[in-house]
């Protein structure tokens, strides 16, 4: 009877003293095996849901901004950072930034940038730029959308940050993000003027700060300034303007 024999081996194993090294190895092996089987089964069973969540996470913010503005699906463009020209293929190299140019606290930045253009026929109506930069204690990730004149903000959203809850983290609130709508980015000379001020804002270049989050506000000001400037999307935006696309 093979069954009977197997049970006997199992019994004999369990009956061995706990100090026995064969039993120690056996218990360790069985516990590890049991745990890994259960964990693997859970992971396999939940994988479709997890993947869907992660995908939604990265795409969500862009979808949100496009939905909120009620515009058609944008076209993805690869842009060479220094020249502002379109590229057909992305390169993965990065350029180091001088500390005095590194407003967003990034240390280095990719040479190929991604931008999303929304067109109505041939006419450009919206440009969406992925932006990121140092806040008070985390890196802020978001999208900045510019209207056709490339000088008016259509929307600014953030989708990832780890600032202080109730203070800096309030940059995620729609109420605050809505303050950016229709603000102007640069003055007549082309200098970037838009910034977050402490307290109440006045004029078209200022956005109200959040109570107790001066440094997060400064971080947002700086990252917007950086990405619109010559080290960010500046050359690309200048080229679009020159083409009369705007």
């Amino acid at each position, binding site marked *: 009877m093979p069954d009977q024999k197997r049970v006997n081996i199992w019994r004999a194993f*369990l009956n061995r003293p*706990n*100090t*026995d090294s064969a*039993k*120690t190895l056996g*218990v*360790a092996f069985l*516990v*590890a095996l049991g*745990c*890994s089987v*259960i*964990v693997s089964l*859970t*992971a396999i069973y*939940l994988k479709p*849901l*997890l993947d869907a*969540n992660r995908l*939604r*996470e990265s795409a969500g913010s862009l979808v949100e901004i496009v939905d909120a503005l009620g515009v058609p699906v944008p076209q993805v463009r690869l842009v060479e950072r220094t020249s502002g020209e379109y590229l057909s293929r992305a390169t993965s190299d990065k350029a180091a930034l001088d500390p005095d140019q590194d407003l967003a606290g990034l240390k280095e930045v990719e040479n190929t940038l991604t931008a999303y253009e929304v067109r109505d026929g041939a006419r450009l109506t919206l440009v969406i730029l992925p932006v990121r930069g140092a806040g008070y204690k985390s890196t802020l990730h978001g999208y900045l959308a510019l209207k056709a004149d490339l000088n008016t903000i259509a929307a600014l959203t953030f989708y990832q940050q780890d600032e*202080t*809850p*109730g*203070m800096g983290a309030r940059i995620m609130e729609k109420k605050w993000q809505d303050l950016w709508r229709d603000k102007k980015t640069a003055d007549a000379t082309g200098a970037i003027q838009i910034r977050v001020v402490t307290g109440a804002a006045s004029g078209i270049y200022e956005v109200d700060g959040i*109570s*107790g989050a001066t440094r997060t506000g400064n971080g947002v000001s700086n990252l917007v300034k950086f990405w619109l400037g010559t080290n960010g999307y500046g050359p690309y935006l200048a080229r679009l303007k020159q083409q009369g696309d705007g």
Partner: protein
Amino acid sequence: MSTNPLVKPIIAENPVTFQVLGICSALAVTTSLSTSLVMSAALIFVLSLSNVTISTIRAHIPNSIRLIVQITIIASLVIIVDLVLQAYLFEISKRLSVFVGLIVTNCIVLGRAEAYAMKNSPWPSLLDGIGNAFGYAWILLLIGSVRELLAAGTLMGHEVFVLVDNGGWFTPLLLMALPPSAFFLLAVLVWIVRTIRPEQAEQEEQV
């Protein structure tokens, strides 16, 4: 005083206020009631199942690899909880970030495994696990409610105190959104429990 393993850890031998265990996560996840609730549920799941599992095989755990076996079981349960949260409660799991994963190092879980499950049969171990987890949970929920209420005027995201910004009377206390406030609230809670039950206070320190 009750000796029931389910009732004893609720106040008399509460893991947080009496034994002062597991306070790191109590401080970190109590910024809102919803995160406290999810964290409590996760701990109840992990603690009760780890106690039962370890108690069931306790006679066959060699002393030399005792802790490794316990941690393996606890860690597996924690991974399962983490995966389930990421699959079904993605938004909340993002806010809980590493703290669900850190249940592995929560002293309450390993402490109950060592102190109780290794010495008792599965049924009392289950009760002990559930009791301790609830002892942890009610404190988390209390601190979470107070912090969310005072920091944002809301409970589970519903407005309770009308903010000055929205034309009401309530100015939110930003201090309550910061981690130290959980320490202060915990201190006040321990003080209240020990005022009512003076036998829990430590002996005067001999200097």
